[in-house]
């Protein structure tokens, strides 16, 4: 049956409009991720805009925060980076608002990643210290435009600001006379072998970790980030270990085509994960430890993990812990992974 030309034109126009609207809608969708959906505490990464009312940020009325301006590929990488920072803990890093609303009111925080910063000023982000437990929906903010929409920068700021809501202060640097040099410990090193504390300033450093060092309270006021995050008030603990720590109960690995692969998560900086295998005859054995790769490649400041198995940045200031201290586990008869102090890293063998 022939279609009337007017109807045909109208249909074509409608189709065109649907395609146009569809493309815009698809562009603004935020992928849903959860790093640990089985636990109650939540860090919600809010990328699609939010109106803030009735909080300490509302100096002059509601704050209408625009969306982050980040596409789904960048959001995915930012989520992966932040989730990896919080992997040792029983907290669910999520992009799903329903997870936020179903979490206990005093065990959740919303990180608003937004282009809207004029209400505050020029900063990478801002938080209230300890607001995770307040129960009044006070969010913290990360300003994506001011961070150049760079995944590394935004992810660093998200982990940092979320850390503040969990009660963390800055990791700072002082001179030998205890005079404050900078509120932000900017770390050490360049390129692949550079490091800074998450609660310092690590935008230009390849690796960032939780740290135990002098805080903004004073040169003798050490802050162990891990202890603060897992303090009772937050209701967050270390997650259960994934692999046995004794050789006797280590899972037996079986060879396929002369190789096997096993993986785990280093939950604490004292963690030991054991695997065991039997060589059928006298052969050489090659072990390859492959740290978990968070970002899209590990070039310069965009990378994060590969160098952890290779290098050890120098100690910083008066910090007690070596942030990226390598320590080899016992590998006689069993395969062991690299260990990263204060830092979670997946290792494949």
């Amino acid at each position, binding site marked *: 049956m022939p279609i009337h030309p007017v109807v045909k*034109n109208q249909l*074509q*126009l409608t189709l*065109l*409009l649907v395609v*146009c609207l569809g*493309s*815009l809608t698809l*562009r603004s969708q935020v992928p849903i991720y959860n790093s640990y959906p089985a636990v109650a505490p939540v860090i919600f990464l809010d990328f699609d805009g939010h109106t803030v*009312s*009735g*909080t*300490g940020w*509302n*100096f*002059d*009325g*509601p704050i209408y925060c625009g969306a982050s*301006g*980040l*596409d789904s590929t960048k959001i995915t990488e930012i989520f992966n980076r932040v989730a990896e920072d919080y992997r040792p803990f029983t907290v669910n890093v999520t992009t799903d608002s329903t997870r936020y609303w179903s979490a206990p*009111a005093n065990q959740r925080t919303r990180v608003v990643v937004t282009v809207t910063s004029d209400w505050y000023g*020029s*900063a*990478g*982000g*801002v*938080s*209230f*210290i300890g607001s995770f437990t*307040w*129960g*009044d*929906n006070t969010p913290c903010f990360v300003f994506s*435009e*001011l*961070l*150049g*929409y*760079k995944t590394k*920068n935004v992810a660093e700021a998200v982990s940092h600001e979320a850390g*503040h809501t969990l009660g963390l*202060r*800055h990791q700072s640097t002082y001179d030998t006379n205890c005079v404050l040099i*900078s*509120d*932000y410990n900017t770390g050490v090193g360049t390129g692949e072998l550079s490091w800074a504390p998450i609660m310092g*300033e690590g*935008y230009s450093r390849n690796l960032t970790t939780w740290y135990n060092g002098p805080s*903004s309270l004073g040169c003798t006021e050490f802050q162990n980030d891990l202890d603060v995050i897992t303090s009772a008030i937050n209701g967050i603990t270390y997650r259960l270990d994934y692999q046995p720590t004794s050789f006797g109960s280590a899972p037996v690995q079986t060879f396929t085509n002369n190789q096997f692969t096993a993986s785990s998560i280093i939950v604490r900086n004292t963690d030991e994960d054991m695997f065991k295998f039997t060589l059928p005859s006298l052969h050489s054995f090659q072990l390859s430890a492959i740290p978990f790769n968070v970002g899209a490649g590990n070039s310069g400041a965009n990378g994060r993990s590969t160098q952890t198995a290779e290098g050890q940045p120098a100690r910083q200031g008066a910090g007690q812990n070596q942030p990226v201290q390598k320590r080899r586990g016992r590998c006689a008869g069993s395969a062991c992974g690299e260990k990263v102090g204060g830092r979670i890293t997946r290792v494949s063998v």
Partner: protein
Amino acid sequence: MKNLKLAAFCLCLTFCCVYSLAQNVQKRSVPVNEPDYSKPKLFADLPERINFDPTHLLDLFNTPVGQSISLEVTSAFTLSGLVVSKANDQNSASVVLRLTSRPGARLIFTKLTGANTPIKYIGRIISLTHGDSYEINSENGQYYFKKKGIYELVTE
């Protein structure tokens, strides 16, 4: 022809929308601000701790946004200002009072009403342009404003 123009207009509109949303990837330095520990004090004339009865602040929740209110916290400490923001959910009710009695500062007062927990009040008086602030605490049922440095509460 008319539809062709419309189609072209739609395509142009889509392009403009996408372009306007495009990310600005120009190189710029990341803003990192050192705290200014020399900010002026707003509460220098007030003590470190001010005991109060939170029921004296409950009128805040009945005051609509845009309306002024004056609350006598103690005989020596009155909070006057304009309600600028409110929020409610099943667990909490919050109100923000822009103070005229302490220009630059805001009182944020929240009533927490958990299902199986007694009513609890939290809040703060803050000004980002000043170096001091107050936070509401409670101890053995006694509520009090506790003086704090602004960077003990707010940080970048």
